[in-house]
């Protein structure tokens, strides 16, 4: 339904998007994740036809966004990040105007507007001026406008940005409901949102796709490489070297990291170790505890680190581009 193939986009000397490729099939709900400046909005703008790629190809609903722009745009319903509206217009007039832009005749327009108003719970504010509405309602008006022509593809850029918690919940419910019958691309930097709404996640950083997978698969894949946090007493000089050797002798340990800088200052007299297991290793907690016991090391904490999407995301976006590996969908 959406195909992005080797797309580049540059603004002056800045490479906003560097040769990204991904494809969304019908019914897929993909989350586009990334820190600010990752290239999410540039990617979305090329998919929605707002801007044109410098090279590469974008197609929506089978239409090339460059060669058949109007047909491609007709397939997309787009909710821009800022939810831009004409404040002087009434909700119903704005939706009717948008329907006219999609070439609907009077009868079609009336039913499409009514349907969008019902679907986005806008009945209460249908005749109010858009400029007088709360941010949440404005977001819904924009979403209603995106749904007017029943597009097979919905692209939502930061759909819950600036909303209060109850509005966020309502908007998420609405998106969830809409996602049952459409292909959706949701851009966000809120990981929990993507985890709840999407069955696929595309992580971008510095204009590149760093990972592209089912969120659960991404977490499961990361779990294959378990890691353990061990906190043990540091009572005399040379303890750190001794403990390092103890951890080294445990089979299946791939990597040993001493105190992380942010923790060291807060824990006096105790050292914290991050032990990374080799892929596919069994649960090593007992072996670690036994090794510490045998070496006379007092353990205060032994924790199996469960990778979350947030940790995976941070790891991927912080990695240098050549270190990151895109995970195939």
């Amino acid at each position: 339904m959406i195909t992005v193939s080797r797309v580049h986009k540059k603004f002056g000397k800045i490479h906003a998007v560097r040769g990204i490729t991904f494809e969304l099939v019908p019914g897929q709900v993909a989350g586009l994740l990334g820190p600010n400046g990752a290239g999410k909005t540039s990617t979305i703008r090329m998919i929605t036809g707002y801007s044109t790629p410098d090279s590469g190809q974008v197609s929506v609903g089978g239409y090339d966004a460059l060669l058949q722009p109007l047909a491609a745009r007709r397939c997309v319903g787009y909710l821009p990040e800022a939810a831009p509206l004409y404040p002087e217009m009434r909700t119903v007039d704005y939706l009717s105007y948008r329907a006219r832009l999609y070439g609907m005749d009077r009868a079609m327009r009336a039913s499409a507007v009514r349907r969008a108003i019902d679907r986005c719970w806008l009945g209460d504010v249908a005749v109010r001026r858009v400029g007088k509405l709360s941010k949440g309602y404005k977001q819904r008006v924009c979403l209603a406008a995106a749904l007017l022509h029943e597009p097979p593809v919905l692209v939502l850029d930061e759909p819950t940005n600036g909303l209060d918690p109850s509005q966020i919940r309502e908007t998420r419910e609405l998106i969830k409901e809409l996602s049952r019958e459409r292909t959706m691309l949701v851009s966000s930097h809120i990981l929990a949102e993507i985890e709840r709404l999407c069955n696929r996640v595309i992580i971008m950083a510095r204009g590149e796709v760093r990972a592209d997978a089912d969120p659960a698969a991404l977490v499961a894949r990361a779990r294959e490489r378990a890691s353990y946090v061990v906190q043990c007493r540091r009572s005399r000089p040379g303890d750190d070297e001794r403990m390092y050797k103890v951890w080294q002798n445990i089979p299946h340990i791939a990597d040993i990291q001493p105190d992380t800088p942010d923790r060291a200052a807060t824990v006096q007299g105790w050292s914290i170790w991050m032990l990374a297991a080799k892929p596919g290793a069994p649960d090593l907690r007992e072996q670690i505890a036994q090794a510490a016991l045998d070496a006379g090391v007092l353990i205060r904490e032994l924790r199996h680190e469960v990778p979350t999407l947030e940790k995976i995301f941070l790891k991927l976006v912080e990695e240098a581009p050549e270190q990151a590996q895109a995970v195939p969908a």
Partner: protein
Amino acid sequence: MIARVHAIASRECGSFFRLPAGWIVLSLFALLCGTLFTLQTLVPGNPATMRGFFTLSGWLLIPVVPAISMRLFSEEYRSGTFEALATSPVGDLSLVLGKFLGAFLFLLIMGLPSVVLSLVLFKASDPKPEIGPILTGYLSLVLLGSFYLAIGLFISSLTANQTLAFLATLFVLIAFLAGPAVAVHNGPAWIRPIADLLSLDIRTRDFAKGVVDTRHLIFFISSIALLITLAFASVHSRRWRG
């Protein structure tokens, strides 16, 4: 295409009536027209003609047109509504034409009260004024207004700053009106034919006399077409730049 142009034009024109700025512009133009009519035309003992009114109409539109044109694209860029518009299935040419026609329609509505002035002249004067020069005068007002609007449309398509769009349009319009006149009187000999070619004053004077010169019509229509094309190029280039 026509349906979309019509949708954009009617929203554009309607928005002027939903905003205080639109009513202020309407009032300002009516005030300027009334003042000019009283000072230039409704003078006891003078022949019943609106020639003076139409000759100066070029200056009359100067403060008004930039106020209309400044928001055409600049406001859309600033508020972000351009993103919604540019991602709907509307071609860039339809977008530019819709904007231009919406503003043009508002300009026509704005000029309607001035028709009352000519009716007053018909009622108050004896012998009655000639209808021909009045009609050609209105034609010049429409052509000049459209030409100004096309300049404003193009400038508005270049910037997201409405104030800048207003000032730049105002500057260009003053330069267009005053520049050729200054060049004809004070400039070197070689510049005079160019100044004559660009002069709006000569054209409005001819229209006000009741003369419809095809060269003037071609000048206005081709200039408007060129400026609309430039506005289209500017809007279209944003897709490559944005």
